[in-house]
Structures are given as C-alpha cells and as structure tokens.
C-alpha cells in the first residue's frame, strides 16, 4: 500500500510529456495521512452520535418533567432543560397494573417467538445447508424471498387466513396475545433461517463427514457440532428475532384490541393517548422503559453479535 501510493504520487512528475497543467506533488508522510483520516472519522462519528442520540435524550428529558412543565411555552423556557426533575412518571407507570401487563405480554411474546423461531430456523437451515435434496436450493432462495415481502402487505391476507382457521377449529384467534406467536415467526423465521444457512454453509464439509464417521447421527451432528460451532450466528439470529418481535407494532395493532391482551408498543399508544390528549411524559417514560430490555440484551451479547455479523465472511 505504502509503495503504491508513493509511486502514484511520483509517477506524474516523471512523465516526459509536460504540456498539460500539472498539480504540484505534495509529499506527505504516511502517519500524517493517517492522522487526518482519524480526525475526519472522529468528526463524523461525533456528528452521527449527536444526530442519533438527540431523540432518546429528548425522551429522557421529557420523561423527567411534570405535565405542566412539558406544556410550558417554549418561548419563555428552554425545552432542553428540566427545571423541576421528578420521577413521578416512572412511579406512576411502574405501579400501574396495566403497564405491567403490557410489559409481561411483550416479554412472553418476544421470548416465546425467539424460542419458536429457533426451533424452526435451526433445523430448517441445517437441512437446507447440508442435506442435498430435490429442490433444496430453490427452497433456500424462496425462504429469502419471503423475507423481502413487506409485512404491511401481508397482514390483511394473514387476517383472512386466521379467520378461516378460527372458523375451522373453533379456537378464538383474534384479540388474544398468543396469536402473535403464530404471526411473528412469519417475520423472523425466514431471516433467521437465512442467517443460519450462511453460517452452516461456512462450516467445512469435512467436519460433518468426520462426525458421521465418528458415529454421530444427523441430530447429534447438529446439536454437538453445528450449533456450538455456529454459536455467534445463532446469537445474532436470536437478537434479531427478539428485537423484531419486541418492536413489532403493526401486527399487534391489527390482531389484538383489549387492554389485557396488548403488547407494550401498542399498549402505550392506546392507553396513554386519550382522544387528542397526549400524556407525553408517560409516553416517553414508557418508550424508554420499553427500550430497556433490548438494550440490556445488546449490552450482554454485543461481542457475540459483532462477531456473528462479521464471522461468516472468513474462516476462523
């Protein structure tokens, strides 16, 4: 790299044809180049940090204000400052049984979705990556394509399907949190399967051949070799599935209505917005509290997650 840069810089100077206008060649040391690259990176990093942290900071500020302070005239007071900080909003939400129900529903739904997703995606990915059967490549592509269909397009057909299913089976499927356990996997399974196919495909073929010769069944090869070896990918997929089901808004809005069945994102909106009255303090508090579980999970699994996103590319 160093050599080629020098050559690039020197070469124009040495060309015998000197008719055209020429830029003066500036000789700079590599370390000064690097220093400037670093300065620019930090400049943009800081810029992006400010840009992306602005909304959560504003949420935090708002959540610490009283209703009166929130509605104060911005001409006379600075909205970016809390004059009389209070934990009132937090206390009120955390003691409200309704909010706790939303929270509980969200956790049950998200955790169950992750489990269901993994139970489907891992064996699916394993068979698509390893067991060559008729149509397996087409199927793998198909799995990916389903992920490309936006969920906004799907919820009406899904609604119809569930209605038919309810009429057949007699099981009530609407306005029940457990219907989300059937619906969310339609979002998470394709993507997680696709991630895991990539991971499993990057495991050398000889590894499962060695396991088979050692006497492992397909199932043992999966549980004792593939899952441990592809653990970073598995964790990446888990985080993805959790985040998607935690943040899902459209489907629960369409499929659940009564307060005891709602999950957090819908619950906050429907219980804290009364007509055109927005209880901003509590909405912001609820949103912040709702953002906590994914944050905590990211914090714990971040190393794995990053390793997971980058690993498949190279053999490690």
């Amino acid at each position, binding site marked *: 790299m160093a050599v080629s840069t020098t050559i690039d810089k020197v070469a124009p100077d040495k060309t015998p044809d000197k008719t055209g206008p020429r830029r003066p060649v500036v000789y700079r040391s590599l370390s000064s180049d690097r220093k400037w690259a670093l300065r620019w990176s930090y400049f943009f990093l800081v810029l992006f940090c400010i840009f992306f942290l602005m909304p959560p900071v504003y949420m935090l500020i708002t959540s610490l204000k009283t209703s009166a302070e929130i509605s104060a005239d911005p001409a006379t007071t600075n909205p970016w400052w809390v004059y009389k900080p209070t934990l009132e909003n937090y206390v009120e939400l955390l003691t409200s049984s309704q909010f706790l129900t939303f929270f509980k529903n969200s956790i049950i739904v998200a955790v169950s979705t992750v489990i269901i997703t993994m139970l489907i995606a891992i064996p699916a990915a394993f068979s698509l990556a390893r067991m060559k059967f008729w149509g397996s490549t087409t199927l793998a592509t198909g799995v990916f394509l389903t992920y490309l269909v936006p969920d906004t397009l799907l919820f009406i057909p899904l609604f119809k399907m569930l209605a038919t299913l309810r009429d057949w089976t007699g099981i009530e499927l609407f306005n029940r949190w457990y219907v989300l356990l059937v619906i969310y996997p339609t979002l998470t399974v394709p993507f997680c399967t696709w991630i895991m196919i990539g991971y499993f495909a990057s495991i050398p073929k000889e590894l499962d051949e060695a396991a088979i*010769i050692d006497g492992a069944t397909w199932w043992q090869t999966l549980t004792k070799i593939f899952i441990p070896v592809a653990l970073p990918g598995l964790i990446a997929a888990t985080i993805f599935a959790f985040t998607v089901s935690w943040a899902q808004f459209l489907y629960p809005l369409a499929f659940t209505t009564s307060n005891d069945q709602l999950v957090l994102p819908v619950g906050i909106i429907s219980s804290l917005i009364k007509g055109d009255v927005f209880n901003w303090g509590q909405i912001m508090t609820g949103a912040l509290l709702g953002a906590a579980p994914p944050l905590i999970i990211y914090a714990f699994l971040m190393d794995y997650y990053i390793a997971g996103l980058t690993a498949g590319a190279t053999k490690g």
Partner: protein
Amino acid sequence: MADVTLRKLVKMYDQVQAVKGIDLEIKDKEFVVLVGPSGCGKSTTLRMIAGLEEISGGQILIDDDVVNDVPPKDRDIAMVFQNYALYPHMTVHENMSFGLRLKKFPKAEIAKRVGEAARILDITELLERKPKALSGGQRQRVAMGRAIVRNPKVFLFDEPLSNLDAKLRVQMRIEIKKVHQTVRTTTVYVTHDQIEAMTLADRVVVMNGGVIEQVGTPQELYHNPRTRFVAAFIGSPSMNFVPCRLESHADQLAVRISNEIAFFMPEQKAARYKKLSGDGQLLLGLRPEHLTDMRQHMEPGCVPFDAQLEVTEPMGMETFVYFKMNGADMCGRVNPNAGALDGGPLKMAADLNNMHLIDAKTGLVL
C-alpha cells in the same frame, strides 16, 4: 484388522464416470497408497470405501462383508482429512474421544485409549488445548489420534500432508510410517505426491483417469512400469522418452534415435526385444540416473554419446543436466565434478541395462 476388496467399483457423477470399474485387493495390515494426478478419482474411491459417497456400481467388501449399503459409522473405519476437520470447539481430548463418547464407552476405557494414542503421537501435553492453539503438524497428529483411539478395522487418509510445509511433510511422513508399524491397521492412503507414495506404501496403486494403471510394490513400479504413464509418473525427475526405432545388425540389436545416434543394446535386452524388430513407432525410456557422465570404466551395456547441455542444476550431491536428443528434452544426473557447464558440451553415457521400450501408440511398456 481387516482386508478390503474392491470389485468392479464404479462412481458416476451425473453422466461423468469418475471411477471406471476398478478391482483391488488390500490385505490385512497392509499400507496401500492410491496415487495419481489430480482428478483421477483417488478421493472418490477412498470416500466410497468410507461410505461418504454412494457406490454407482460394483462392490466394496470389508472382511468378506459387502458394505455397499452399510452407513459409515457401522463400517468401522476412521478417516483423516486433508484439512484435519478437527471440531474447533472441543479440546484435543474431546476431539479424540468424540467417537467413543457417542458409542457410550466407559470413562475409564476412553481415558486409557486417549492416553495411549496421545503417547504414541507424543501429544500428551496438548490434550487440554483447542485446535486453534495448535500448529499444523500438531493438528495433523490430533487428527491421527482421533483415528487411532477408535481402533478401527481400516484407516483412510486423504492427502493428509498436503497442507503442511515441505519440511514438516517429510517429518510427518516418517511419523505416519512409525504409527503404522505400531498399530498395524490396514491403511488406504491417498496422495498425488509420488514420493509420499513410494516412501510409505507396502503397495502403490497408480490411478489415472478413473482406472488403475498398475499395482505393485514401490520397487516394482520403479523398475518395471507397465505403461508409459506409470513410467513417467513414478520417479523424480521423471523418465526421459525419446522416439526411436529398432535395427538389426548381424546378431546385434540397436535402437536408432536419429541418423547420427544409435545405441547397441546389451544382450539380455536384445533377447527381450528381438521379436519386435523393425516395425512400429517406439519410445526409448531412460531414467535420468541412467544418463550419466562418461567415466573411465563403464559397465557393459553403457554406451557413450556427446551431449550439448542447455542448463545445469547443481544439487550438491549430484548435478542435473538438461539437453536435447534428436529434439526430445532430456534430463541426466551427473557427478558434480564431471565439468558440466551451462551451454557446454559433455561426454555422457546411457545405461541401456535399464532401458525401457514403449509402444508409442498404446503407451504400453514392451
């Protein structure tokens, strides 16, 4: 401990025949090496023995049992792969004991076998390490250890040394030979490197284009190759071939290479080739070590000729000389003190006691 028999073994990939009906008998305790150029079907053959590849035709027998439809785990074989295929998340001990643990061996027995194999391979201190923390040679040992602990009927090796550097390869080659002398398990070993084949094998199987060209001990293959392919493949630098015809002169037989060059054959060779006289396109095959510098006292059967050298390669112990004989590229091995110089002339001798005559059309050694 077992025999392995291949009968008319065929492997088809779609419409392409990768293995074209080979017959081979491997005796108990034997070390057999399958050798041949890349793509000749060695790995495919080995993988069919392992059960990793379906058999398209013919039979494989292990100990007189047809195993065509027996899954790999029930064939009682162990395989060592080119890239070692160690389980990256397990320690060396866990890697070696994986098969035994799956078969629910008692703990004490596992510990005993792993300890024993580790001792044979000298990896006792590495047992708690993960593969990532091992060098190439150590990984190779662990891969062998994993095969040994299972105490299988047959060891299968697929180019196990190809990922190692030249020096380590020589070292591990000797290691593998020692291990075989210790455990005496029937072994099928695949390589494209003829030196590996010659040094390791009890018997070498030379394959080419999906068929077996010749089976024999290293010495047999070296001295009595049956085809031009085997003659050229075994030995390094490889055998020289130069077009020639036979001429009878009274009671003597000569190979004529050009109008200027002809060699009279020694008697025992003349007797062998007498019937052929005259017709047919022939190739004279001579190994480099049988094209030497002219010395004071030459054995009977060594005939002198003048060579105009193109390039010389001093190897220390000897010097390789490259020259042309009637247009054909030749390589000879001469004494470093023979005065061989790039572009210089050299008085040389061809040892016709070790000559081969090959039918240029069929490629068969006559």
